């Protein structure tokens, strides 16, 4: 059950990431590129959590990957609000 849920989430993160990538291609707005990378990381993290379920020592490293994804999202928001650069 939890593998099914994890698989569905990983796929949803990946598909969303692809949409963000396309939005980046359409608008050249850096925010979408960063979101695409962040969601890609979240998809990878979710997948690895399942693949490495038997290795609890790996879990902390995987949560750092999740942290990195969210830090990227913060960076995207900060970048969007830097008054000197209209990023799109």
């Amino acid at each position, binding site marked *: 059950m939890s593998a099914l849920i994890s698989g569905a*989430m990983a796929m949803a993160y990946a598909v969303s990431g692809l949409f963000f990538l396309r939005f980046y291609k359409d608008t050249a707005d850096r925010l979408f590129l960063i979101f695409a990378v962040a969601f890609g990381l979240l998809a990878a993290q979710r997948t690895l959590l399942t693949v490495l379920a038997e290795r609890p020592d790996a879990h902390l490293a995987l949560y750092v990957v999740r942290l990195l994804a969210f830090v990227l999202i913060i960076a995207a928001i900060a970048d969007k609000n830097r008054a000197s650069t209209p990023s799109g």
Partner: protein
Amino acid sequence: MATIVYALCALTSIACAVLLLRAYAAGRVRLLLWAGLCFVGLALNNVLLFIDMRVVPDMDLSVWRSLPALAGLALLVYGLVWESR
């Protein structure tokens, strides 16, 4: 250390949810509603993760804590497919 990770993830999700839902309230662009709800789900996921790890370590909430995130992501994918053009 882990607490800080969960807290930061939760706070970021909440911030995104607030920004998106605020913008939805202003302009009624439906994509923002679905995206905002997705980040609410991700925030709940992170909060439940914290509770699972720190508050009730003897219980395993791993399926329960994923459900809000899964629901949120389903709404986001729905919104991206139908409302992004």
